[in-house]
């Protein structure tokens, strides 16, 4: 077995979060450590990309905060992630939703996916 894969398997935590795809609206709860205090914060937004694989796999979520677009990138295996909830499944036609950056208001909405 590849030694680097072995090291990653031994050291990185395997996330057991629900499956989500680009276009989904999710809420990420993550821990913030300030000095010796620890608190949780929630970041709600649309998943605009899932990037990489293995230990370096990340996802990017985007939300509008007071009219300003805010994006955050989280690694899947980051220990600061405590919970991910899928709030809405979105219907999109591509894997990277960077076109949302140029859209505002009603045009920036994502259609909901129904099964």
């Amino acid at each position, binding site marked *: 077995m590849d030694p680097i894969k072995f*090291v990653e398997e031994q*050291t990185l935590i395997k996330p057991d979060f629900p499956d989500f795809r680009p276009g989904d609206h999710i809420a990420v709860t993550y821990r913030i450590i300030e000095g010796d205090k620890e608190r949780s914060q929630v970041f709600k937004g649309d998943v605009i990309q899932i990037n990489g694989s293995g230990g370096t796999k990340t996802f990017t979520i985007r939300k509008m905060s007071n009219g300003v677009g805010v994006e955050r990138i989280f690694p899947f295996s980051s220990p600061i992630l405590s919970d991910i909830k899928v709030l809405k499944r979105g219907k999109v036609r591509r894997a990277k939703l960077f076109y949302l950056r140029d859209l505002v208001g009603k045009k920036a909405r994502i259609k909901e996916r129904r099964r």
Partner: protein
Amino acid sequence: MNGLIGKKIGMSSLYDEQGKNIACTVIEMNPNVVTQVKSEDTDGYNSIQLAYGEAKAKNTSNALKGHFEKAGTGPKMKLIEFKDAITDKSLGDTVRVEEVFIEGDLVDATGISKGKGFQGVVKRHGFRGVGDATHGQHNRLRAPGSIGAASYPAKVFKGMRMAGRTGTDRVKIQNLEVLKVFPEKNLLVIKGAVPGHKGSFIIIEK
């Protein structure tokens, strides 16, 4: 024991307790074989010679073959002497990675840096080039500038830093932290980067 020979496998990253992503290097450290023990009485100083990496017998000189035979081992690729090693190991013994390094140790890594070919002074010596990029300047951005005075001394001093072959130097990086030791796979994980390309020999010393 104060050091071992290993092989650079490649780089990866892992997380610390604060959730910070740390770059790390994975080094393969199969058991090193003791091929010579030098002592105060016989050689005037104390040291231990270790061997690493299987070599083919046809690529090994007869002199070295005899040296390895003495230690009761097959031909090896790399021989390194570690001075002032305090150890009870004798000729032919193997030294495993977990016997020498534990998590949290600070170590020095020595290797041969990657070859960069013929490079200019900006990359090779960290010069800053001459002048501006604009205001009528041209082709001076990565130039070395003056290399000396005029009719006195009428020569360029020896050792003047100029363009040339870069890399493939012996480089030592000091005070790297040992992040993990995996004895079952003979692997050592070190914080940060070590010199050299993948597959090159690395000397790790405490």
